[in-house]
């Protein structure tokens, strides 16, 4: 997994995932049968080096969100390890993960659910600072609001007084508050209106640069990952089926599933060439999800070279 395209920054792995498995036990459906096990992750391994922009693509149910929870120390694996900055985090209890909370932050998918409706924006954004006993959280607040393009008055309002895009800005500001080294973004734009997705993606891209963040970006939307990430891993059914430099994964997909995935992205060019929606849908289970979504089309069109 060598990725030369990260601007010559040191290539020490910041995040190392080895043989990660996670199974869940479903409530038993019948007292006669044992409780069914669901294998969300079936042995996932990869590395993310410092400064990398690592994209994780897969359809819903492929285990992306489980993986996000494991690498952010919000869940523990059934087996396998996660190392962050050389320290294993997959066996530590929450109270010993302080170093991780300082250096790895998460942006969640749905900004409505990830912002406490009873808290003011001021308290939401400074929560990591207060929880980690930083000095002068209030001073940092103004800076953070400006960084994500919100006016200072926003601090005294409640989340429901903002639009979806603005809420995701609040969520991003909170993640940046402790000046983390790594940002894990779990489908950060898929809950947003099409019209604001581009704004939020550009903002993320800018901030990753400004804060010198290592990015792990999870999405079901290939066009978005292609735009933002230098390395792409394709997940299918709890495993990574393809991993490599983004350009290579898109231009010469090796795994059949990746080929399906790439082929399913409708592009303006192909549409102009006479491909109909039914052509695109044909042959891929993912086409329904990606094809029905107008952003995918515009996003792909926009990122065409």
């Amino acid at each position, binding site marked *: 997994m060598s990725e030369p395209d990260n601007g010559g920054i040191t290539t020490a792995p910041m995040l190392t995932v080895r043989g990660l498995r996670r199974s869940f036990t479903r409530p038993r459906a019948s007292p006669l049968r044992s409780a069914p096990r669901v294998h969300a992750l079936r042995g996932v391994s990869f590395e993310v080096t410092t400064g990398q922009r690592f994209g994780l693509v897969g359809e819903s149910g492929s285990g992306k969100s489980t993986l996000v929870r494991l690498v952010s120390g919000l869940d523990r694996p059934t087996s396998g390890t996660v190392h962050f900055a050389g320290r294993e985090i997959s066996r530590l209890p929450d*109270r010993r993960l302080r170093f991780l909370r300082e250096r790895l932050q998460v942006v969640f998918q749905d900004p409505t659910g990830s912002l406490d409706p*009873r808290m003011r924006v001021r308290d939401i954004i400074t929560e990591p600072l207060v929880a980690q006993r930083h000095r002068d959280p209030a001073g940092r607040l103004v800076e953070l609001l400006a960084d994500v393009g919100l006016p200072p008055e926003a601090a005294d309002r409640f989340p429901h007084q903002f639009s979806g895009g603005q809420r995701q800005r609040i969520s991003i500001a909170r993640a940046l508050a402790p000046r983390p080294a790594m940002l894990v973004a779990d489908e950060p734009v898929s809950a947003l209106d099409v019209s604001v997705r*581009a704004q939020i993606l550009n903002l993320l891209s800018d901030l990753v640069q400004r804060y010198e963040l290592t990015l792990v970006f999870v999405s079901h939307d290939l066009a978005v990952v292609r735009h933002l990430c230098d390395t792409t891993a394709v997940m299918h059914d709890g495993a990574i089926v393809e991993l490599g430099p983004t350009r290579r994964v898109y231009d010469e997909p090796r795994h059949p599933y990746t080929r399906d995935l790439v082929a399913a992205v409708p592009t303006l060019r192909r549409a102009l060439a006479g491909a109909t929606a039914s052509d695109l849908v044909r042959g891929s289970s993912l086409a329904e999800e990606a094809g029905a979504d107008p952003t995918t089309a515009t996003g792909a069109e926009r990122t065409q070279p």
Partner: protein
Amino acid sequence: MSGVADHGGGWNGDRAATEARGAARTVNASLVTGGVLVATVILTALLSFLWTPHDPVHNDSGARLLDAGSPGHWLGTDKFGRDVASQLMAGARITLLVGVVAVGIAAVVGTPLGILAGMARRGVGEFLMRVNDLVLAFPALLLAIMFGAVFGAGTLTAMVAIGIATIPNFARIARGGTLQVLSHDYVQAARAAGRRPVGIALRHVLPNISGLVTVQCSVSFAIAILAEAALSFLGFGTRPPTPSWGRMLQESQELLFSAPALALWPGLAIALAVLGFNLLGDGLRDRLDPRLAERRT
């Protein structure tokens, strides 16, 4: 991607919309009616400290069993010649005192227990809730009568017994609310931010279940009033000569056919107070329930 200029376009629009929603809020009939009834009880109790038409415990042998509307005694007098209106006013104090103390005990003990049961590991939470069910299955009045037998009947015993018997209601409500709050991503975000469980409980869970707990307070208050009246009626509650609605009922029992109005007034007071707290609870539920609040926004 072309750089889309970022503007706060939605900002003012959202704000205006929020304010419009606030103004368009419909008047909640339960909340208003319940609030008026409860306020009446509270004001009456407060007023009784400063002024009552007569001394509520003064026996006037010359004015026994006067009818309502008699000069100086709007609601008449009882068999000892005590002024009924004055007794009702003073009785509101005991009613409120019992409610406040009993609900206070139940909320202060039950809510943290419920949060704990919700946040603890599954097995521990389930165990706590089964214990809770056990206490819940025990009739409050029976517990109060047992307490009365052991510690001596009195207002304090009654309040504590009613309070303890009400704890499971709060624990149950709090646990349900906690589980619901914990399912939200903002709790995961708080963990990722480095919050400890106690911080999550205080900063996220408690504020978000406060509406549920407030509603439960109001409803439990109504139940506590009824329980106190029942206990006093049975002789396990407030002792003479302190005026209490329940005891007024009991004392009027033997005269039910000759002076039915004596039972009517305290009965009406109890019914209206209970109705008031129940309506207030209902109204608050509509106003404070976080789920409904989210739907509104």
